[in-house]
C-alpha cells in the first residue's frame, strides 16, 4: 500500500520547508503532517517523507523512533493520555490512570479492537497546577475528578 501526500499537505510541507535553511529541518513538521493524514508512520510513509524532502530514509527513521509523539502503529481514534508524574500523582493521577484503563479494558499503548480507543500513561504534560489531567488527542482536560473523567470518556463517540 503506497502512501502519497495530498496536494494540500504538500503545500503545508513546502511552507515548513521555507522556515529552515535545510530540507532536513522540515522533517519534524512533515512527520506530523503525515501522521495526521495516515494515522501512523509506516515504512511506506517514511519513504514518501524522505522522497518529498529529498533526504535519506535513515534520517526519517531516526527521528520517528526518537520522539514519543510519533506513532509507528495505528492508535485509537481517541488517544487518551493520562499524566502520572509527581504533581498529578499527588492529586490522584494514578487512580485516574487505573480508571481509564479499566474503562476500556486496555493496557498502556493498547488500542481497542474497534479502533476507537487507545490509552497511554504519559510524563508531565505541563499542566501540573491543574492536576490531575488527561489529554484526548490534542485537547487537555484539567482539574479532574473521577466523575468528570467518566463524563469525558462517555462523551467520546
Amino acid at each position, binding site marked *: 500500500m503506497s502512501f502519497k501526500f495530498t496536494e494540500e499537505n504538500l503545500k503545508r510541507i513546502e511552507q515548513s520547508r521555507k*522556515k*529552515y*535553511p*535545510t530540507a*532536513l*529541518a*522540515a*522533517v*519534524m*513538521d512533515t*512527520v*506530523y503532517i503525515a501522521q495526521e493524514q495516515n494515522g501512523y508512520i509506516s515504512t511506506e510513509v517514511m519513504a514518501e517523507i524522505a522522497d518529498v524532502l529529498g*533526504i535519506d530514509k535513515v*534520517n526519517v527513521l*531516526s*527521528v520517528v523512533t*526518537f*520522539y*514519543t*509523539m*510519533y506513532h509507528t502503529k495505528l492508535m485509537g481514534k481517541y488517544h487518551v493520555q493520562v499524566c*502520572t*508524574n*509527581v*504533581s498529578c*500523582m*499527588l*492529586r490522584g493521577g494514578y487512580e485516574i490512570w487505573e480508571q481509564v484503563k479499566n474503562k476500556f479494558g486496555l493496557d498502556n499503548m493498547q488500542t481497542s479492537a474497534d479502533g476507537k480507543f487507545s490509552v497511554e500513561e*504519559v*510524563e*508531565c*504534560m*505541563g*499542566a*501540573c*497546577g*491543574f*492536576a490531575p489531567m488527561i*489529554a484526548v488527542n*490534542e*485537547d*487537555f482536560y484539567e482539574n479532574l475528578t473521577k466523575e468528570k473523567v467518566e463524563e469525558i470518556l462517555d462523551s467520546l463517540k
Partner: protein
Amino acid sequence: MERIVLPEIENLHDINVYLANNGFEAARKAFKLSTDDIIDQVKKSGLRGRGGAAFSTGLKWSFMPKTTDKPKYLCINGDESEPGSFKDRQIFEYNPFQLIEGIIIACYAIGAKTAYIYIRGEYHRWVKLMQKAVETAYEKGFAGEKMKETFGIDFFCDIHVHKGAGAYICGEESSQMNSIEGLRGYPRVKPPFPAQRGLWGCPTTINNVETITNVPPIILKGWEWFSKIGAQRHPGTILFGISGHVNRPGVYEVNSGTLLTELIYDYAGGVPGQKKIKCVIPGGSSMPPLRGDQLEGVRMDAESLKEAGSAIGTGGIMVMDEDTNLLDVLLRISKFYHHESCGQCTPCREGTGWLEKTLKRIKNGQGTSQDLDLLIDVANNIEGNTICALGDAAAWPVKFMITRFRDEFEKYVNNEVSLPVANKVHSMRNSEVPLAAVKK
C-alpha cells in the same frame, strides 16, 4: 506587587490591546540604540535566565561574535517539560506579543536574522496560539521584512515556531538545536558553546520564553527600575508554578525573593485539610527537595535557595503534605529521568536505570539499608560525569531526598511503611498563634 510578564490587562493577547498598552514601544526605543547599548542595559538590569541555570542574560548575549560571515540565530526555549513547570504556556496564551517584542529586540541586539520558538509538542493548543500571534505580527509589520518600514530601520528578522514531538531532553539547549535541525535530540559536547557553534554550526543564543518576555519592559522603563525589583542579586519578578498539595495551585508572578511560605500559604492558600508539609521541591523535579522544617525564612531567588540547599530551577514548586509517601515520589521521579535519558552517556543511561530498579526493589519490600547507600553512590557516580545536565537532574533528587529524609526511607526498607509524622514536618502553621505574630 507589579506584574511584568503577565500584567493584569484583559485580552492582552489581542494585538490591539497590546498596542494600546505601550506595545512595541520598547522595540521603537531599542532600535534607536546601538546593539552594545542594549546588551549593556540588559546586563545592568541584572536579568537572569528563567530556564533553570539563572545565567546573566546580558552576559550571554555579549558572547555572540560581532564579526562573522555566518548567519546568527536566536532560539527561544519553550520546551517546558520539567515536571512541576507550567509557566511558559501562560505567556503563549496571555501575553504572546510581549514575547515577540522581546524576540525582535534580542535579535537586533545579537544580530540574528532568524529566531525559532521551540514549543513542546504536547502543547498543541499553545503552538497554534503562538503561530497565530506570529502571523499577526507579520501582518502588522512587527516581524519579517515589513519591520523595516514599521520602525524605519535597516533591520528585520524572521520568527518561526518549531513544534517538538515529546522528548524532555529537547529542553537542553544543544539537544534543542539538533532537534530544530531535524535530528534526534542528542545533547552535544560542550565546548563549543552555542555562541560559537549553535544551529547549523552558526553562532546562536538560546533563552527561555519568560527570560525574553522580560526584555521589553527593561528597555522601556530602564534597567535601574528593573534592578530594584525583588532580590538584588536576582532581580525582577518570577513566574512560580505551584502544584501538589495546596488549595489554590497555579502560576503566580511575584517579586524574586518572596518567601516560599508566603507563596504556599498566602498565594496558594495553604495545604488542604490544614495538613502539615513534609517536603517541598522548590524549582521543578530535578532540584533538591527541602524538608518541612527547612522552609521557614527561605526566599525564592537563586542565591537564597542555594544557601537553603536547593536551587531555583524553573520555579516549579511542588508541595507534599505529611501523608505523602516519599518513596513513591522518588520512584516516580527516577522513572521519569530513566525514561528521558537519551542514552548517549553510560553513567546516565545505566545509572538512571539502576536508580529506578533499586527504588522499585525497595517499593516491593525487598530493600535493605545498604540499598539506600547504593542509591546515593550511584547518584554520585552520575553527577558531573555526563555530557549534559540531565545526569545531575536525575542524581540530585535521589541523593538529597534520601539524605534529607533518611529516617523515613529507613522505615521503607524495614517494611514499616506507615510512619508517624516525625518532627521534621513544617508544623508552625498549625499552631494557634499565627506565625507573623510569633515573629514580631
